């Protein structure tokens, strides 16, 4: 507990017990709560980070990691609970305040200005100045110092960031953190954008930083990275800390996964039909590949079957779905609907063959937010009701109203702008679009993201009901319980490849999560 203020230089690191780190506690969170309208994103988080350690944060999607980072970065302010920074209660009013206090955050999407130089990015917003003029020479010199501190003295401070590879950009992000004299650096899945050898380099930099007494909060889904670089692990689940300060190297994966799984709420999933009718494949995908996204993926969906793909963000699952749908062009492989090959790269062809898709980003990819509900519902089908190019407004309205009733849309008035609906009801509009027309296969990408519990259950019921009518469903979700609860058959995707396929009944959450995270429970899974 608390401050053994031994200077980190001569602290007896070797003697320290495995589960503690000698540095002083720089950050301590106690019972931090953060609610958004309708969402309790953080529900009592405890976290203790010591100087010079790599503290790993583990948790499933939606466990509250992103919110936690934003609280620390000064983006969000906690509703209650305590944030202690270097022994003092801290309130970061804005990101600049957190920066000044010495907390730097490196987000997954690096927030660099591509057309500025390395030095300009490193000192963006706090350039060394004389009478309003930037001291360019001084800035370049200090940038070079910081870069060599990071072991990357070879990056020229004057180089445009655009010209750097992903790993180089990450180094610049870290240089920016150090330019603020950061004492805590938060890294949100830093390895996600890096190639394998670049990850080794990242780890070397992290070790150099921690050797200088800087604390690192490291977020990753990859167990082997946590084992290699981490000192201690804190696990979040449903906005709560379920385990704190576990030793990163010794804690068995099984224990860590167990702390992340097992929900407080049991979602209500509709019953599966006892024996799915054996029929010819509706969708057959063979050897589908796109460089850097996914490779050699084969799968099939039968009529009336719900097939779920489990995988992390970045595993290639959304890209796969969009490629099947023709929104991206496959580099190799074939997509067949009912035995007939589809023209690659043509959404029109896929829709005509009976496919429909509810994409991942509802607002930016699926909806005309300012347009009324009925026009959104009929967006894919209005030509069917038209005669000689003239739309049939009455018929469209009637069909949309029928769908609104069927899906129990609230509010039920189809003339309302879609913008005014809640997330769950917006999703119903997107799914409802494909209930019109002759959709035989529905592709659902994260269908319940941002959807509240009640609407979730309704969506599940709708999806199961569609399957009961013989529609095939291919579902992608990063929520493992959802895939397991809803799908008949589950495919696990990792780093662009299918690593496991099994009936949903034969898998449990731990197994799937372990596969998704490339853990050690299932040795010898085909890579």
């Amino acid at each position, binding site marked *: 507990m608390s401050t053994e203020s031994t200077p980190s230089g001569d602290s007896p690191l070797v003697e320290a017990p495995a589960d503690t780190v000698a540095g002083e506690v720089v950050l301590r969170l106690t019972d931090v709560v953060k609610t958004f309208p309708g969402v309790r994103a953080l*529900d009592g988080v405890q976290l203790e980070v010591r100087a010079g350690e790599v503290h790993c944060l583990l948790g499933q999607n939606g466990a509250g990691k992103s919110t936690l980072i934003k609280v620390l970065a000064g983006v969000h302010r906690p509703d209650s609970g305590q944030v202690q920074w270097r022994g003092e209660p801290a309130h970061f009013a804005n990101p600049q305040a957190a920066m000044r206090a010495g907390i730097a955050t490196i987000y997954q999407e690096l927030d660099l200005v591509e057309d500025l130089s390395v030095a300009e990015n490193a000192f963006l917003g706090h350039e060394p100045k004389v009478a309003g003029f930037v001291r360019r020479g001084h800035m370049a010199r200090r940038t070079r110092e910081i870069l060599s501190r990071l072991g990357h003295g070879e990056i020229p401070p004057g180089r445009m960031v655009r010209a750097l590879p992903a790993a180089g950009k990450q180094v610049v992000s870290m240089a920016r953190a150090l330019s603020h004299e950061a004492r805590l650096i938060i890294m949100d899945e830093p390895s996600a954008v890096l190639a394998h050898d670049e990850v080794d380099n990242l780890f070397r930099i992290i070790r150099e930083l921690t050797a200088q007494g800087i604390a690192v909060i490291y977020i990753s889904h990859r167990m082997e990275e946590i084992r290699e670089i981490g000192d201690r692990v804190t696990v979040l689940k*449903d906005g709560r800390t379920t385990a704190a300060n576990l030793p990163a190297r010794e804690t068995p994966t099984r224990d860590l996964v167990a702390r992340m799984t097992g929900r*407080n*709420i049991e979602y209500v999933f509709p019953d599966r039909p006892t024996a799915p009718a054996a029929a010819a494949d509706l969708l057959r995908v063979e050897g589908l590949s796109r460089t850097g996204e996914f490779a050699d993926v084969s799968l099939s969906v039968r009529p009336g079957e719900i097939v779920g793909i489990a995988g992390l963000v970045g595993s290639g699952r959304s890209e796969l779905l969009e490629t099947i749908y023709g929104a991206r062009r496959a580099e190799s492989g074939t997509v067949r609907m009912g035995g007939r090959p589809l023209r690659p790269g043509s959404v*029109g062809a896929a829709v005509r063959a009976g496919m429909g898709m509810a994409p991942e980003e509802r607002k930016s990819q699926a909806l005309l937010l300012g347009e009324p509900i009925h026009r959104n519902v009929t967006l894919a089908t209005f030509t069917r009701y038209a005669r000689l190019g003239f739309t049939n407004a009455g018929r469209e309205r009637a069909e949309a109203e029928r769908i609104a009733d069927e899906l*129990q849309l609230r509010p039920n008035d189809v003339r309302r702008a879609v913008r005014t609906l809640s997330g769950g*009801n917006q999703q119903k509009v997107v799914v409802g679009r494909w209930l019109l027309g002759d959709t035989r296969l529905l592709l659902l990408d994260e269908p319940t*993201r941002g959807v509240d519990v*009640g609407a979730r*259950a309704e969506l599940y019921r709708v999806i199961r009901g569609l399957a009961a009518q013989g529609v095939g469903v291919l579902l992608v979700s990063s929520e493992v319980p959802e895939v397991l609860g809803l799908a008949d058959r589950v495919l696990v995707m990792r780093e662009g490849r299918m690593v496991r396929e099994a009936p949903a009944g034969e898998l449990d959450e731990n197994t799937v999560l372990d596969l998704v995270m490339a853990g050690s429970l299932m040795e010898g899974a085909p890579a």
Partner: protein
Amino acid sequence: MSESTGTATPDRPADLPAQSPPVDPAVTASLKEKPRAGGLSFWQGDGGEGAKRNLGLIGVLVVLVVIGAATRWDLYSNPDWVWGNTLTILKLASVVGVVTVGMTFVIIGGGIDLSVGAIVALAGVWATTLATQSYGAGGMIFTAIVVGTAVGVVNGVLISYGRLVAFIATLAMMVAARGLAAQISGKQTQVSNNSFINGIASTDVLGIPLLVYILAAVVAAGWVLLNRTTFGRRTVAVGGNPEAARLAGINVRRHTLLLYALSGLCCGIAAIMLTAQANSAQAAMANLYELDAIAAAIIGGTLLSGGRGTIVGSLLGVLIFSTITNLFAINGLSTEAQNMVKGGIIVGAVLIQQVQFRSVTQFFGRQKATTSG
């Protein structure tokens, strides 16, 4: 997701429909405050909000007329003069009005067409070469329309298949088409010797100039196209959210191409009208029409980022401009002052839409609701 923890109960009955999700208070509030008219009225064809915005524009027109009457009561006290002046304003609006209809489609579809003035000039010049004139009025009209549409198609191909930014592609076309027009005409004014063409501008039908009928026909066709056809629905979808349109199976590229072709077609029609008015065509004609058309569309409530706009609004935008021009003319004021006021009107109109849009439309909306019962 963790949002559920707060509200969920562990043992929820399997059937959930009775449970309603939390309703956004703002949603319920706006539900109450919006009175809704009964059936589909003419105004509602453009969408409820657009109709209210158009009422505001009509208000602006009324104010302009009142100013005109106040400053030149000596003229306005004569009903014959007022009727004649109204026709003058409409005639003034006709050519730009036709161009603006095409422009409105392009902007609603998420694009911009800076080349309309140049296309009008090129189509006009091409239609009045000695060779074309030898084919008679039919040949001239055909040439103007085909040239206009063809240039629009080139714009569309560059933008949708060449993936050029619309601003750049049509800017290039603006320069190039005027260049070609100057080349064809040898920088000379080409006089039209065709009495039918020249008569288009001087003929009145039932006391109203033929040009005004052409404008009315184009506006009516544009309104039907936007509000009653699949083409119009695609335009709104493509401009409102191209990705959503694409993922709904709409061929966004083809539609984008068609939008620029439509704009070119309108320019071809306008070229004939303008040639008829001047009895001639030259490379410098229809100068800055692109700015007039864009400004009119924007004043009319068309969203520059696409997805929203009305034909009626654009027409009102054009009428507001030509009424201002007329107002300055009858008061003997300079065009310089007129241009400054026009600039102010553009800024003012957009500001009103952004800042006071809600309160203004609510005012008019309430008026309308009370009068309609």
